[in-house]
């Protein structure tokens, strides 16, 4: 059930995001305040927060969508 292309796509997107955050934190330790996440009044942090919330909503929507697909199949089988 979780082997679909969409699931893989979301997993890779999340892993990629985590990778970028980890990288950003490493550079904080090295050079202090000069990394991308702290530029422009830290607006990138807000963008990041909004992206996490949005992706959370999407994941929830996808799960609901799948639940209904499953129910539709069950009722069809009856």
């Amino acid at each position, binding site marked *: 059930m979780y082997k679909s292309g969409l699931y893989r796509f979301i997993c890779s997107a999340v892993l990629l995001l985590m990778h970028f955050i980890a990288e950003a934190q490493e550079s904080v330790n090295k050079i202090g305040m000069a990394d991308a996440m702290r530029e422009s009044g830290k607006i990138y942090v807000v963008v990041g927060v909004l*992206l996490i919330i949005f992706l959370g909503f999407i994941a929830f929507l996808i799960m609901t969508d799948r639940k209904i697909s499953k*129910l539709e199949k069950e*009722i069809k089988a*009856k």
Partner: protein
Amino acid sequence: MKNNWWKILSVILLIYVIIAGFLIDVPALPILHETIRNLFFHVTMWFAMMIIMLSSMVSSIKFLSKFKMSADVWAVESANTGMFFGTLGLLTGMLWANYTWGDWWVNDPKLNGAAATMLIYLAYFVLRGSMDDEEKKAKISAIYNIFAFTMLIVFLVILPRMTDSLHPGSGGNPGFSTYDIDDNMRLVFYPAIIGWTLMGVWILQIRVRTRFLRMKINANV
């Protein structure tokens, strides 16, 4: 997956809108300042609302020509989803108004028109709730729905153009020009309209499928 490409398109467009919406350069305008970015979020709620309400009216016309109950389900759930977007549009607009015009609500043709539109669609649900006979309910509310969309066009599009208004997009025939947007912003604005609308259709589809399931269960018992 074949039939779900538009859901993926919606997510990709909206991810782009969230990132670009906050980060692109916007024209420096008096009073508005950075809030011009609300164009990608507040204004697009209303665009999505109007497109979904149009689909509601089309479903109602379909119902009246073929008398299929499934068309009635699409009509009522479109109206539900449209109301959801309209409510978000009203709330975001009020917040925006408070920080640019200085009040949560100003007596303005565009704002009052939006409120009247919401009340007209609320009446649609009251009308539906007042009848028990499913067929009668579907027929009468389908006819009302056609009038409701006509009034939406009158209140949101025509009347604000007849008078002066604080709200951009009013007075004369402004098109998009009075939104004070440059070509840079259009690159985000148009994808935002498509993205939010598709998101609305996704939510709408989930609601419709749930209702079909309920109908099937009721038919079996």
